[in-house]
């Protein structure tokens, strides 16, 4: 599965690390009581602290600490009982304090692990270097007025977790798998909604390339403005190819920040002036070191929900699902809940098949998520009940499923309305078989002279004459007996 880019001078591999900014789910901001709801009118969710009025002081929101610890535990990471907030100094119009309160030297969460679920069903560990808490900035709007920029401070002071991975990722596919898995964990934990399109999860991608076989890391570029999983994957590929080209043309890759342009499909250097920042980090004297107890951490650990990896193991162990199927079903918590509701009382493999093959196709077709599925988990269960008790055949079930997808109706009423109940009465099936045999002596002859494959044609004929309602098991058994004569 290795991702190797061929160049003129040889084969290259890519080394990638991600910095993900995840907005903590919390009613109020990291250091103020202002609300955090998305989409409010500009500057309506701003406290005196968020606007950095003179004499205002930050007070840590304890719920945000809990959320960060919970996330750390979800990443199987070391929780630091003492952490310290630092000021990161820089000037920008949407940064009212003139510094961002962050955690550089002593983050709340240390090393952890994320397990990637790859497309071929295999898994791989990616190291987490650290997770720290920090404030978000406000938003500058440059397109509202020809001469002036406007500032919206609603987001100013909102709590973020910056989750930094080790440079353990090697391909665009890895990047996609990592982001999806991280998002899945955050959503399971309820610590970040993971909506990249609303900006509540954002990422910077650190990319470098090296010749296959090299062990040292070369200079990396930090690619910013990557606001979807797809863009992150694209950005890696584009940036890697650019760097290879630079090296192969005899140049050197500069360690710098670059901006991803999804429209032009390129990355561009940000002005050197903009990146010549010296952030002058130092411990924020307005805040005491953050000290938490092991008992506090343990209590949060007790309350953790079952996470995707554990759930996947359970699906594989208890339900006998493949690694791939289990991975797909647990990726979104809502999907897993749906699946478990359908699987309960049914064959779990059959249930998985229906959800993954049939339901996902419908959802994709209609462009909706599983919580807005036209087929409720209850109705899906009923459909499997109808199959299990032989009321309908698998074939009819597919037709009923299509109608359910279009109408959202209960499968039992669809079956009743359309008269789709399976014919299991062997007399009725026998009569249908007899008629087909009587009408098609030539085909009967073919069967009897050794072409057993033609049995399938007879099945089709009988099904057609019964409107597909003949029980396939009964039909097959009777048909073979009668054809053999």
């Amino acid at each position, binding site marked *: 599965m290795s991702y190797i880019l061929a160049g003129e001078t040889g084969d290259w591999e890519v080394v990638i690390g991600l910095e993900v900014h995840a907005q903590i789910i919390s009613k109020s901001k990291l250091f103020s009581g202002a609300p955090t709801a998305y989409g409010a009118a500009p500057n309506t969710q701003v406290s005196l602290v968020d606007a950095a*009025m003179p*004499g205002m*002081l930050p*007070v840590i929101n304890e719920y945000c600490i809990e959320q960060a610890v919970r996330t750390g535990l979800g990443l199987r990471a070391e929780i630091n009982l003492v952490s310290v907030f630092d000021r990161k100094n820089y000037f920008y*119009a949407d940064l009212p*304090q003139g510094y961002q309160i962050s955690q550089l030297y002593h983050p709340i969460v240390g090393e952890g692990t994320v397990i990637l679920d790859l497309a071929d069903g295999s898994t791989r560990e990616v190291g987490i270097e650290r997770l720290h808490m920090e404030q978000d900035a406000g938003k500058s709007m440059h397109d509202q007025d020809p001469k002036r920029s406007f500032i919206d401070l609603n987001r100013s002071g909102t709590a973020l977790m910056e989750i930094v991975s080790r440079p353990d990722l090697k391909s665009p596919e890895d990047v996609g798998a990592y982001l999806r898995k991280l998002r899945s964990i955050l959503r399971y934990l309820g610590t970040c909604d993971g909506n990249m399109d609303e900006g509540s999860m954002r990422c910077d991608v650190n990319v470098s390339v090296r010749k296959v076989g090299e062990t040292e890391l070369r200079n990396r570029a930090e690619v910013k403005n990557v606001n979807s999983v797809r863009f992150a994957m694209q950005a890696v590929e584009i940036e890697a190819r650019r760097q290879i080209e630079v090296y192969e043309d005899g140049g050197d890759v500069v360690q710098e920040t670059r901006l991803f342009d999804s429209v032009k499909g390129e990355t561009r250097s940000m002005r050197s002036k903009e990146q010549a920042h010296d952030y002058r980090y*130092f411990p924020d004297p307005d805040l005491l070191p953050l000290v938490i107890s092991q008992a506090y951490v343990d209590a949060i650990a007790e309350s953790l929900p079952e996470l995707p990896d554990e759930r996947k193991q359970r699906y594989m162990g208890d339900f006998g699902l493949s690694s791939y199927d289990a991975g797909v079903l647990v990726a979104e918590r809502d999907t897993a809940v749906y699946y478990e509701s359908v699987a309960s009382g049914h064959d779990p493999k059959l249930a998985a098949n229906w959800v993954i093959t049939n339901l996902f196709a419908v959802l994709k077709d209609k462009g909706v998520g599983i919580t807005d599925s036209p087929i409720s988990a209850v109705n899906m269960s009923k459909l499997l009940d109808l199959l299990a008790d032989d009321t309908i055949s698998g074939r009819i079930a597919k037709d009923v499923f299509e109608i359910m997808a279009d109408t959202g109706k209960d499968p039992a009423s669809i079956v009743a309305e359309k008269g789709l109940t399976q014919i299991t009465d062997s007399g009725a099936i026998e009569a249908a078989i007899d008629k087909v045999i009587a009408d098609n002596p030539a085909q009967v002859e073919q069967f009897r002279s050794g072409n057993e494959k033609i049995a399938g044609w007879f099945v089709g004929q009988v099904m057609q004459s019964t409107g597909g309602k003949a029980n396939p098991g009964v039909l097959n058994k009777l048909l073979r007996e009668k054809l053999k004569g």
Partner: protein
Amino acid sequence: MAKLTNHTIASARDGLASGDFSAVELVQAHVDAMSAARDLNAFITETPEIAIERATESDKRRAGGACAGPMDGIPVAVKDLFCTDGVLTTAGSHILDGFVPPYESTVSQNLRDAGAVMLGKTNMDEFAMGSANVTSYYGNVVNPWKGKDGKDLVPGGSSGGSAAAVSARLALGATGTDTGGSIRQPASFSGIVGLKPTYGRCSRWGIAAFASSLDQAGPMTRTVRDAAIMLGAMAGHDAKDSTSAPVDVPDFEAALSGDIKGLRVGIPKEYRMDGMAPEIEALWAEGIDMMKQAGAEIVDASLPNTRHALPTYYIIAPAEASANLARYDGVRYGLRVPGSSLDEMYANTRSEGFGDEVKRRILIGTYVLSAGFYDAYYRKAQRVRKLIADDFTKAFEDVDVLLTPTAPSEAFAIGEKMDDPVAMYLNDVFTVPASLAGLPGISVPTGLSGNGLPLGLQLLGRPFDEETVLRAADVLESAAGFDTVPGGEG
């Protein structure tokens, strides 16, 4: 008593209680004094309407039997670093032009809740950076005291307006803030009492920040008793300030027993510096003698890292200030000087809005935090700060208070030391160590210089042991019998 402005807080409290005069009469007398003494330039903003209104409310409360306590009806001045709801707040800086906060600092709110009446906002060194009150955008403050040559003198700083107002009988008390000596040094220069409480005793919420790990509000009054009364109304834990200490506020006045028998008073040898003015040395010796006479035990003490305090302070305080003052950027409030780009607007606004001393400290602070210099300056300074604090901890294992001079000189003439920032910084040599250690300290006027100017001695105590500091200061004050007032009255 003929003049209501000659009262102390304690005597005014008693006069109000016994109905000798009303709060309105008391406040009106101070409003009149304030407007008659504008040549001192002690106030940036006078608020006579607010004062009379609050005095009227105070009289009503008292009449209704609901007196809010010893500060009810007492006219006080508020340093212009404290944000005051609906009243211009400038921090002595051009950059806060027209800034009227929609909120009240915790300390000034506490005073309001205790019934104290605000007369106005006092002048100060810009953002509390200075030791002579000559860096204010609103002009220098004149010390009510004059030397023999009659020249105008500085009142000390940065709380110079508060010191001048209290010394000149324009207010019975005033709030100050002390980062490296900004309450104690002007108190010494102006012949009043200035108390810097333990770091964390008073909330910093709503006080424009200079150096967050050092800034502390405190009372400036004419007597130790008044300082005790006023501190009681200012202090208290505040959930809005994470560095505010969750400790109870004791009855500070009750600590003034007048008895220091057996109290161990340490004399730190490192404060006896080379080239120390003989009259400061003499003053100190007299103070030691007074304490001994009162029954205290005088003990030699040592604070070995004292000589590192000033350089340490001038790394840490500017470093914090460089970040704290970043918010004054012309974007949201105060002065904005337009420019053709955001960066140009910042540069124009901050160039015009900040004075030289503030710029100097922002530059020093930015430098010591820069990549490549952080370890050599800021980190090292933090380590030395710890050593300085440890010195005190060790000393206080053996002594109850330390007695030192407050400042190395008497008040100097306006314009002096202006071209030599280091000479100016040396004013804080005796006050800075306790600031770095977060300890309570008080300056008590104990004598006059040969030039007829007031001089103060400083008492330092253990963290949150303001009671012992006040008890010792009260005895020292009585022994010194400093009862002169500027202009030779009294």
